[in-house]
């Protein structure tokens, strides 16, 4: 017993354990989200989706994963082998390391650093490197197209999303994600989308800007995770499957997992930035570390569902229109909002 405690208090061991904890969340989350996505898509389209494996097909995601695990892992002859193998892991690492700064509850955060949200912006860009790598290493023109498109897209949308985050940071006065959540503690009225816990006149004048910032961040986060209407890097009707055309088996599964993990990541960031993180919407009612985790995941999943809903509703943009939206619509609006918020906060 004492040995175990000693082992746990070893900084390296505890760091490893803390690092593995989000994985325990991501894996079941991905399975659930795959299920939800399929079911939502199906019901939107008057279908039922899978019904045969387990009750209403609940075991189907497991079956899918098993299938992917068993599939032959093909590496094209002309591919650059090392980069080809490295790319999916790099994509996943980029996403996964961002989970370090997600405050799941008041008691759990991977790493409560002061520059939390800044770290998140920086690290999640690592995904681009992985995508470029996979596209180039596949030695497939469609993959290369997809990779270049996704690089252009993610880099462009970093700017409005960073500006949106900047606006929130100005309101909350902190970059630490945990601090930011504490800032919003105390019920639905304290959430940053409603102005946080600032004086009333400031809150009221902040609300319209906050809503715009929220929309900007929502749109650019959708672009960052390559979801419809911004899924041009993997637009199956244009680029076959984009950067992951040549991937199969486990490597494809990792891309898939990274995509879903990324989806939750950006939804969680929306929650942290605008919707109070792990705080309960009812103030102190149903609050506490465990309830906190519940609220955090629930709110995150709501935004994941919103993403799914949009995906099965909207057509896809073209690459130049994508750039138009980023540079000519989102960025100017975000800049204006940041300016206005700055003025309001300073006054």
């Amino acid at each position: 017993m004492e040995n175990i405690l000693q082992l746990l208090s070893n900084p390296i061991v505890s760091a490893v354990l803390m690092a593995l904890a989000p994985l325990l969340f991501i894996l079941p989350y991905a399975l659930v989200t795959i299920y939800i996505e399929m079911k939502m898509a199906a019901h939107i389209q008057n279908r039922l989706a899978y019904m045969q494996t387990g009750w209403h097909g609940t075991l189907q995601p497991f079956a899918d994963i098993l299938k992917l695990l068993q599939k032959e892992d093909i590496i094209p002859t002309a591919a650059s082998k090392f980069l080809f193998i490295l790319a999916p892991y790099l994509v996943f690492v980029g996403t996964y390391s961002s989970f370090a700064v997600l405050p799941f509850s008041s008691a759990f955060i991977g790493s409560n650093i002061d520059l939390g949200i800044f770290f998140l912006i920086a690290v999640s860009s690592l995904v681009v490197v992985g995508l470029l790598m996979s596209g180039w290493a596949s030695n497939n023109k469609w993959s290369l197209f997809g990779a270049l498109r996704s690089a252009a897209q993610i880099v462009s949308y970093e700017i409005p999303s960073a500006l949106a985050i900047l606006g929130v940071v100005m309101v909350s006065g902190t970059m630490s994600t945990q601090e930011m959540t504490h800032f919003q503690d105390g019920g639905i009225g304290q959430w940053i989308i409603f102005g946080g816990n600032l004086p009333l006149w400031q809150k009221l004048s902040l609300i319209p800007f906050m809503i715009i910032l929220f929309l900007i961040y929502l749109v650019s986060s959708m672009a960052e995770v390559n979801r419809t209407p911004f899924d041009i890097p993997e637009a199956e009707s244009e680029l076959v499957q984009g950067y992951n055309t040549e991937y199969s088996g486990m490597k494809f599964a990792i891309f898939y997992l990274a995509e879903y993990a990324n989806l939750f990541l950006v939804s969680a960031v929306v929650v942290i930035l605008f919707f109070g993180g792990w705080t309960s919407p009812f103030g102190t009612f149903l609050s506490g570390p465990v309830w906190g985790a519940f609220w955090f995941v629930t709110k995150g999943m709501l935004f994941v569902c919103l993403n799914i809903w949009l995906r099965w509703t909207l057509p896809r943009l073209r690459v130049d229109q994508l750039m138009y939206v980023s540079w000519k619509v989102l960025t100017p609006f975000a800049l204006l909002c940041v300016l206005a918020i700055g003025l309001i906060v300073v006054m």
Partner: protein
Amino acid sequence: MAAVALYFSDIYRSLRSIVIGMGVTINQMFQPVVTLQYPIEKKAMPERVRNRLYMNFDDCIGCELCANACPVDCIDIEVMKAPATENLGVTSTGQKKRIYVTKFDIDIAKCCYCGLCVYPCPTECLKMTDVYEFSEFDRHNLIYNFSTMTPSEIETAKGKIKVFEEEQAAKKAAAAAQAAAAKAAAPVPPSSPDPSSQTPPPPANPDSGNAQPNT
């Protein structure tokens, strides 16, 4: 100025159409599903459905009209004309059978389900059923043999035909001899028609140059 107005109206219309689209999809989400859980639930087939071809061999008179009508040649028939003395029975429609059908194969893998073979059949022995699940692991299993004649029966039939032909030939020879004896100067009658020919009944208007309506 117009450009600015366009810029803002674009944003407005985009947001509006997104909201409208989401309204449509969320509304559909609560509509009843239209799909069937196929192997468990099955759709009732309408009366005229055309699926697997079925052939009632007892009624076949070996006319080969179906094989001629088939656009993809999936019906393979071999027939032998039976001796006139042989009684092959009658079909359920009352037609007398005169031909041994030694082979009646339908290659259902080739079949295009057009139903053209069904219409010309004089005894209505071919029909398209509502069975649509008949996949096989071996392609050869999709060749359906409908002929009920066993090889030994075919041999017997061949023997009978041979005997009959010989009898006929003998009769002809006898008749010829008789005729020759009766009228030594008279010309020899033409030989008997080829017994193996099995032409289908002649078409209604063989020498018509143009299409003739039914009535």
